């Protein structure tokens, strides 16, 4: 395949662990919404597991990401603790954000999740600032901005790429191209055949990669991250993928081509990678099953704890608006 970087066995298993965590977390999210136990707005990342999993194994705990509303996979891959995440999804005081942010604004600086935005394209300019701080301090940190293909048509994308290129910021722009911007197909909205080509306008590397192939994704991520860390500037990665469950959970996704969806699901990257790990002698069915069971249990415990946790006090409305509490 001519890849410059290949993950070792431990890293391969780490990638798979993140992937199964994301997949199972998504399955349990959809089930818990349908059960009525935790009602929440939910943008399923199912089908996009590989991208942040293969990227995050190349990041340090101190590196930061800025992600978007369809971002549970990015957060889990970066290490947001399940209990904190689930309590936030349930709007509880024990959540990452004390229940004040919710699914679209999960924040957990301790694991490097600095911003989750509900605004298309807004992760990029902010990631630039995080990278700018690293550049000024010379601390060797890198920042990753995650966004979708739709974001490549908003002004912030272009402003951010240009500034990052001019200032050689240690930032990696990761476009998760799932072929739809909300309900509308990529070709209908985007003049560029490939998002990656837009990097040419800013004279930075633009790479299109199969975002459902862990090895290719790992290689592209490591190349871009190493480059940023070395002070050589930003990279735009266009990771090709597909979202299995439409834009927002509950939408009828009639705008999606049925055959296209079925084909994508038949080519599900998670079981595919699982089989590859077994076929190539990196693990066994029994070992992976044990890992999957443990992960599933951890998620169940987090959900149970979230349901049992208290809601925030209404006095929280006056806190965290400013540093000083708003007088009652």
């Amino acid at each position, binding site marked *: 395949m001519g890849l410059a970087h290949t993950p070792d066995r431990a890293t391969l298993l780490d990638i798979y662990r993140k992937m199964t965590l994301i997949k199972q977390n998504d399955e349990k999210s959809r089930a818990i919404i349908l059960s009525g136990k935790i009602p929440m707005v939910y943008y399923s990342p199912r089908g996009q597991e590989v991208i942040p999993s293969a990227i995050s194994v190349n990041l340090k705990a101190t590196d*930061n990401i*800025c992600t978007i509303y369809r971002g549970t996979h990015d957060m889990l891959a970066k290490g947001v603790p399940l209990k904190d995440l689930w309590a936030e999804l349930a709007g509880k005081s024990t*959540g*990452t*954000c*004390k*229940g*004040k*942010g919710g699914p679209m*604004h999960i*924040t*957990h*600086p301790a694991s490097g999740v*600095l*911003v989750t*935005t*509900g*605004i298309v394209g*807004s992760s*990029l*300019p*902010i*990631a*630039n*600032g*995080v*990278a*700018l*701080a*690293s*550049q*000024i301090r010379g601390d060797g940190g890198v*920042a990753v901005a995650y966004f979708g293909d739709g974001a490549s048509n908003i*002004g*912030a994308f272009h*402003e*951010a790429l*240009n*500034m990052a290129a*001019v*200032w050689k910021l240690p930032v990696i722009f990761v476009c998760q191209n799932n072929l739809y911007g909300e309900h509308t197909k990529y070709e209908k909205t985007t003049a560029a055949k490939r998002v990656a080509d837009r990097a040419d306008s800013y004279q930075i590397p633009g790479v299109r990669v199969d975002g459902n192939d862990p090895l290719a994704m790992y290689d592209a991520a490591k190349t871009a991250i190493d480059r940023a860390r070395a002070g050589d500037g930003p990279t735009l990665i266009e990771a090709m993928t597909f979202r299995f469950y439409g834009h927002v959970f509950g939408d009828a996704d009639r705008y999606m081509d049925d055959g296209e969806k079925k084909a994508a699901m038949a080519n599900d990257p998670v079981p595919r990678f699982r089989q590859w790990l077994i076929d190539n002698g990196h693990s066994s069915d029994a070992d992976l099953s044990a890992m999957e069971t443990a992960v599933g249990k951890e998620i169940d415990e987090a959900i149970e704890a979230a349901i049992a946790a208290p809601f925030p006090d209404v006095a929280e409305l006056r*806190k*965290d*608006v*400013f*540093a000083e509490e*708003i007088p009652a």
Partner: protein
Amino acid sequence: MENAAASKSQKVNMIQALNMALHEAMEKDKNVIVFGEDVADPEEGGIVGVTKGLSTKYGELRVRSTPISEQAIVGAAIGAGIVGMRPVAEIMLMNFTTVAMDMIVNHAAKLRFMSGGQTHVPITIRTATGSGLGVGGQHADYYEAWFAHVPGLKVVMPSSPAEAYGLLLSCIEDDDPCIFVENTLLYFAPGTPPVPGTRIPLGKANVIREGNDVTLICYGPHVAPSLAVADALSQENISVEVIDLRTIAPWDKATVLASVAKTRRAVITHEAVKPFGVGAEISSVIHEELFSQLKAPVQRVGAPYSPVPYSKPLETAFMPGIETIKAAVLKTINR
């Protein structure tokens, strides 16, 4: 600190005072960084020279001229602020903040709350505006009411060089996002030099002149004309208390209400258009809290409901001045 060396008797203008504050902030804290269009010295240190000397002294890592990309400018400030820097981002003119509204309103203002206090955005956005320079409809608007309406933003407007110095330093050192609005005409007006090292606290109004008959609430470019009105009316035995709000959001309710409880009459004046302006909020609160004590309905002064016009006579008519403010004060005492 070349400007600080100016002797006490020597007047300075707001450009010089702001420049002193920025030098002091950058000297004191290496986390203070400055960027915006044309702010570095090769680009002349800002269009009027507020940032002059900073890039030469503190280097191009910390002081940068940016692309004309307001979203990217504010976004970079937010990101750097979250990880502990204290960015001072310049958006050259207040009208240009409109293209960065997503960053300011959806992100800078809310990230502290939405993260449950895990992150905060200690940034200062310096911007300038004001009519009177013949720049027409897109270079002179006052949008302080927009920003004041967004929970999480502090909005500050200085009325003199010394005020600009003390308030800007407080904004830079504050842990919340501050919109610092400079007036383009006041840039060039000389005033008493600031005392180096002084800070003017945010959220505290300044009772500039005490009086008993009417409270006149103002800020920014309307402070000088308000004082002129108070002077003129003292000749007619009308005693006007003048309050410089200094911080528009969060505004100093306690000082304003205490004053109006004493004078039992109030006028609010600003250059922004009158409908839905800051005056409407302050007037409403005064009515809500002190209705039965008021001797007259609160009066508001603001620009007419029109875009900022170009032609000189139109622009002059657009800008509320001494006569308009005086008439509003007189209206509260039935004269």
